[in-house]
């Protein structure tokens, strides 16, 4: 424990410096581009929100668990979370080390070491620990509990998607730290698959270089008794595009929080999420997108289906547009399809816009059941109600699955979704029919 605190201190310094530099850099860019910033009006502080004090990103960031109090329902970040189900992750623990990490091509092939370097390093060795800082107690506990980090370093043109297969090591608590680094101008697709039985705290750092085009797709297909608390810290390089997809299809408790920043102008972040929640499961995704440079674009689109009593999903989408980020284009959307009565979907978009000179900062959020008109249209063409429901749910997810853009993943996901749908229809669908 004492040792962990010391290590913490050593990585906090570079993190701080990086953030200071980015602030200074953006200031210069703004002046160069002659973007007019608003001036204060003493009579009307609301006239120029950019000059209002920022409230969104004052939350603590630290590698030290003790910097954060024990989560309670009274804290905004935890109010949707059934915290009593994960209180084992609130204190530093001895990880079991049983989680297995294997890296290969998505077709099982060996990787070209010129394109993908895989290593396991002490966690304090850069780039590990350099991308932002933990933002809540469980993330800091993850950092403090494990000693090493798995690093996947991609460069150049990667023709084959990289598969990082993470297999849970059972219900003994484990911690895992994964760092994904993409060099400047890299093209790569990385798929991170989680499966098996697990009780895991996972930290992920992603940093992409200038003008790189990278996708990272995280799939959670844990056993129904598994727990997973996760934290992603993401840095999108100047002129780079990152498609960050999150697919959560199984697990008793999954809570993943994602923090992001841009590293320069014209970054493009596309966050996609798909989740399917079964009775009694809690699935929570929290995204924090920070526009800190000019002319960056972000899209956050999360869609979930909830099936059965006590199925609970939470999506909280935070977006912060700083004064240093003129010509920002951002949009976030969350849709929930409640398949059967008794499920709860919490959906909360939060926007803080501190800059009047933007292209857009939209958001949309909905929780709904099947659209009767859609079902009737399909049925009136001879499609049975059961098949019509399947078609609608497939369609609901299909658009996003298409966008993930990796054939192997697309086919796999649609297969999983189909299996879930045919499993649901026998028991769950009947309840709907009876109750309506």
């Amino acid at each position, binding site marked *: 424990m004492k040792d962990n605190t010391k290590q913490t201190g050593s990585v906090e310094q570079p993190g701080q410096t990086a953030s200071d530099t980015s602030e200074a850099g953006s200031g210069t860019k703004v002046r160069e581009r002659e973007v007019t910033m608003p001036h204060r009006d003493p009579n009307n502080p609301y006239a120029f929100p950019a000059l209002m004090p920022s409230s969104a990103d004052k939350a603590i960031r630290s590698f030290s668990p003790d910097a954060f109090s024990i989560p309670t329902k009274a804290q905004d970040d935890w109010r949707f979370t059934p915290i009593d189900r994960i209180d084992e992750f609130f204190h530093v623990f001895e990880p079991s080390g049983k989680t297995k990490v294997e890296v290969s091509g998505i077709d099982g092939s060996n990787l070209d070491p010129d394109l993908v370097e895989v290593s396991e390093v002490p966690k304090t060795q850069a780039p590990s620990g350099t991308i932002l800082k933990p933002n809540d107690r469980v993330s800091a506990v993850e950092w403090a509990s494990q000693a090493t980090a798995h690093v996947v370093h991609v460069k150049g043109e990667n023709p084959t998607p990289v598969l990082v297969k993470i297999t849970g090591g059972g219900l003994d608590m484990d911690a895992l730290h994964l760092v994904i680094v993409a060099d400047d101008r890299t093209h790569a697709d990385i798929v991170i698959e989680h499966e098996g039985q697990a009780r895991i705290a996972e930290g992920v750092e992603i940093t992409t270089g200038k003008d790189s085009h990278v996708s990272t797709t995280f799939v959670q297909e844990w056993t129904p008794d598994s727990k997973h608390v996760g934290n992603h810290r993401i840095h999108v390089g100047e002129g780079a595009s990152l498609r960050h997809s999150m697919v959560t299809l199984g697990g008793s408790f999954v809570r993943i929080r994602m923090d992001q920043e841009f590293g320069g102008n014209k970054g493009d972040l596309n966050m996609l999420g798909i989740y399917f929640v079964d009775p009694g499961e809690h699935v929570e995704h929290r995204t924090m997108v920070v526009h800190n440079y000019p002319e960056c674009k972000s899209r956050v689109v999360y869609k979930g289906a909830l099936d059965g009593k006590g199925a609970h999903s939470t999506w909280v989408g935070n977006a912060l547009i700083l004064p240093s980020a003129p010509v920002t284009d951002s949009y976030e959307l969350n849709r929930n399809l409640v398949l059967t009565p008794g499920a709860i979907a919490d959906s909360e978009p939060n926007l803080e816009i501190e800059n009047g000179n933007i292209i857009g900062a939209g958001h949309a959020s909905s929780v709904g059941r099947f659209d009767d008109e859609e079902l009737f249209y*399909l049925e009136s063409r001879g499609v049975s109600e059961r098949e019509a429901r399947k078609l609608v749910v497939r*369609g609901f997810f299909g658009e996003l699955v298409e966008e993930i853009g990796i054939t192997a993943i697309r086919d796999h996901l649609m297969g999983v979704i189909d299996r879930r749908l045919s499993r649901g229809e026998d028991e769950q669908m009947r309840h709907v029919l009876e109750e309506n």
Partner: protein
Amino acid sequence: MATLEIKDLYASVETKEGKKQILKGVNLTVHSGETHAIMGPNGSGKSTLAYTLAGHPKYEVDSGQALLDGQDILKMTPDERAKAGLFLAMQYPVEVPGVSMTNFLRTAKTEIEGKAPAIRQWTKDLNASMKRLRMDSKFAQRSVNEGFSGGEKKRAEVLQLELLKPKFAIMDETDSGLDVDALRIVSEGVNRAKENTDLGILMVTHYTRILRYIKPDIVHVFSDGHFVKTGGPELADELEETGYDRYLPQGADSESALA
């Protein structure tokens, strides 16, 4: 030769003010190969008749029957009615995001035929029908009705009519929102379906415009929830001249007269 026989049909809709009866004793017999035009003012219940026959859950049948070759379709689910041979071309076709036209059409065809169509023949038929309706082949890959223009939606309805080959089709204001060219293309499609499969047609419309392209054998005036007059094609011309006023119940306002 098939027969659709509507007998003394009463149906209601649930409104904020409570249950409201819309159909008040509808009687009509349609045979294969016949085209019936159902004309009437706004709010007379024409669309309610169309949706009640197709089985929309919003409408509740109070009494009466609709026999398709002796089988009461009102006792069936909407998909069973479609399988029995009924087709409703909707005035406002519904968008179904994420479901491609091609997937949807093939699923519907499979359900109606009871088996999947042979892929080669199906693709050929689909492409030929789309070409005749001047639909771009990219259409098949788009989501059902999503982002389609008004005219594209109506073409897509007629495409389904041609491919699913029902015994009877209810065309609910298929002419609304179409320009002259689209109206001609859509009408040709309906006429083709009639020629190829001896389709019986119930054409619900306000205007006589579409009747120049799809010639009705029988014209009915629908008002206040039932048929009030039946005649030959000349009745349509008469309505064009004089309007619906004389067929309205005493003291009622005609929306079309006001418009």
